[in-house]
């Protein structure tokens, strides 16, 4: 018996390596499954749920579900796109996201996801939460209004930087990104070169003094939708 793991995503057969999640296998196979909290350098987290796919007819988060032989995965279906739109809209209304003047505009994964999914305006009412900004650090801004609680900085600081600068406090709607100090980011060991800084998908952790450096037209998602880098890897022969 062969030990190879072959799964089918939207009719395309791809091979998975042992230990891979569905999302990782799809990435390698050139199939993009939308995601916000997942990141290739980080442990799977399963928080945003944008990567929800149907696995043999059951909804699962592709980022935390192990790939398995012969499973049938649905990804780019209209019901799933609708689910993802709703989840991304939830993230928009939950925080205070003003794309028009945010420095991350054009490079922001939340914004790019909204464009990719075709969101024009959220169906849910804006919550306009009052959240604190932390500008204490000389080089880095922590703007909690834009945080989507994806936990990337938490994992990156802990696992890649070995520092544990970030962690969540509170629960439910009061859940907040917090820092390893009594109150201020300036009192942590966070450095500009830390992975935790650049890995933020939105404009919640920003480098100071470099705002709007990339001109419009040259920003990450100005010409191609998010996920294009993965989809370009797909060999034409593989498609059915």
């Amino acid at each position, binding site marked *: 018996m062969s030990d190879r793991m072959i799964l089918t995503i939207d009719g395309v057969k791809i091979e998975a390596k042992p230990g891979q999640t569905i999302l990782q296998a799809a990435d390698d196979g050139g199939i993009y499954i939308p995601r916000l909290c997942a990141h290739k350098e980080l442990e799977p*987290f399963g*928080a945003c749920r944008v990567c929800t796919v149907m696995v043999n007819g059951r909804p699962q988060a592709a980022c*935390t579900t*192990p790939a398995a032989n012969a499973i049938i995965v649905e990804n780019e279906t209209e019901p799933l796109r609708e689910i993802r739109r709703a989840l991304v809209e939830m993230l928009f209304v939950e925080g205070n996201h003003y794309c028009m003047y945010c420095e991350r505009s054009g490079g922001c994964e939340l914004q790019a996801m909204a464009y990719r999914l075709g969101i024009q305006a959220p169906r849910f009412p804006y919550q306009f939460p009052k959240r604190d900004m932390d500008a204490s650090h000389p080089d880095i801004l922590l703007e909690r209004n834009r945080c989507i609680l994806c936990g990337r900085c938490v994992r990156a600081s802990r696992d890649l930087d070995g520092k544990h600068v970030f962690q*969540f406090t509170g629960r439910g709607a009061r*859940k907040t990104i917090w*820092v390893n100090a009594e109150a201020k980011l300036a009192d942590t060991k966070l450095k500009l070169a830390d992975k935790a800084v650049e890995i933020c998908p939105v404009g919640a952790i920003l480098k100071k003094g470099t705002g709007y450096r990339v001109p419009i037209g040259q920003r990450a998602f100005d010409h191609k939708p998010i996920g294009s880098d993965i989809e370009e890897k797909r060999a034409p022969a593989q498609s059915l």
Partner: protein
Amino acid sequence: MIELARDVRDTCRTYGNDRTRLLDIVRVVQSRYGCVSSQAIDLAANALKIHRVEVESVVSFYSFLSVRPKGTIVIRLCNDVVDEMFGAEKVARAFSEELGIPFGGTTPDGKISLEYTACIGMSDQAPAALVNDVVVTYLSSDRAREVVRILRETGDPRRLVHRLGDGNNAHPLVRSMIHNNIRKAGPVVLAPMDPGAALRKALAMSPVEVIRDLKTSRLRGRGGAGFPAGMKWEFTRNANGDSKCIICNADEGEPGTFKDRVILTEFSDLMFEGMTIAGYAIGADLGILYLRGEYAYLRALLEQVLQSRRSQNLLGKNILGKSGVHFDIRIQMGAGAYICGEETALISSCEGLRGDPKNRPPFPAEKGYLGMPTCVNNVETLCCVARILDNGAGWFAQIGSKGSAGTKLLSVSGDCSSPGVYEVPFGLKLRNLLEMVGGEDALAVQMGGASGRMVSRADFERIICFDDLATGGSVMVFGPQRHVPWIASKFLDFFVEESCGYCTPCRVGSVLLKQKLEDIIHGRGQAGDLEYLEQLGALMKTTSRCGLGQTAPVPVLSSIQAFRPTYEALLLKKAEEPFLASFDIQAALRESQQLTGRASTVFAA
């Protein structure tokens, strides 16, 4: 400060400077100092060699822990739906007036804090409150004022117990005013037992034979999900691991359930016996009883029962003389978090972490507590285990209905003449239960607590069992005078408060559901709003990471299903209302009008 430093260091040392015991450590600090202050967080982090934000993260998660100072006495009034039906609001006003502080506040002398809390497991004697660890039941406004007077005079919550309850509630180690309210005892759980009898029979068999017996009995988990217990044990037994763990889930947090409270009070020997049998069968030498913070008043009694079992060699090394069979149980206290009833969140909590559920796979049976293969069973399930081993699998399997063997403990509360605990065989019609409890004129029944379904009279002929009307035990009866949308909104309040916030659909969705339902209740609902609720609810069911978010929309969705005309009657007809009714222009203008000092000339109030 020096005292605090020494105290925190000593406390950490008591727990072996083990970061996985963080929850125990911060509970001790909280109880001594009324908070886990920033200094205490630093001290604990240093002693445990972890980062302060990890400690803060845990402290901020549990509602019984606080970074900011609270009074040495904290009054936590339960504002669960049943408590509110029986006057919790009046009681709240009395507390607030008598103390001169709002909810969430602390008296100026720093002595007494006043808070709301979710269901404390006393719905059969509502309204109820926790005053530190002391439970005060059957509150009224007069009684609330008296409570404040006594606390002011004596500073001692124990003085609030003016009469003792029945059974072990009057035990010197408990001394509580709680009543068991056992209305109907059955043969499986609420029956006398001889400690050690079932265990002796189990030890005479091989572990595999014990599991086989359990499978033959067709026992399914009593916590709500109904997973076959024998299969769960087998998975855990067959998983690779040098040490294994059995956890008893006594985090009875589902609103309206209190049957585990009664087991813990009167039948804990049976439960511990079931745990010990489980330990033997799956090959675990460690057992943990996860006891919800609200039931802290039972801890001393439970410790004594454990001690007595140790002295009878029913726990410890070479149990009942059988060489190589070692098993002991420790009690892990919770600290106010409903989510910890979810088995992977419960494991996180036992590990001294935030009560966040874990990603599955791996499942606890493969990798659970501290990475050990772990089996988590409900209190009632483990009681059934002990009885099955004592009386036989066949005896058990013939009780109940076809797909649901045995009996079920039901916690009945609300609009009925005899609220309390009923042990009934599976297969009982809801109508017959309502007759039994004196709730025949019910308008609606909530089966399974906040995460359960609301059913109307049309469903009263349905059968209580896993395959029809399933319930973890909570049965709330609502009389004809009750307002269904209000009930649903109370359950949503609960989920907004208790969501761990890990995943988007549960964290945001429960708030959005609640807002729309409030609009509808307050006459701001429009055509399409019920569909909005249904779509949002479906999204939460499909995409939430754990059972909490998946079931949070169930009460509102099932109540819409059962009482659609009630909801529709509340909606404005679009033709009558040209503007978006949920948008309040005056409220939106209020701040700018205050700032400018004049009213809008266009949108006059």
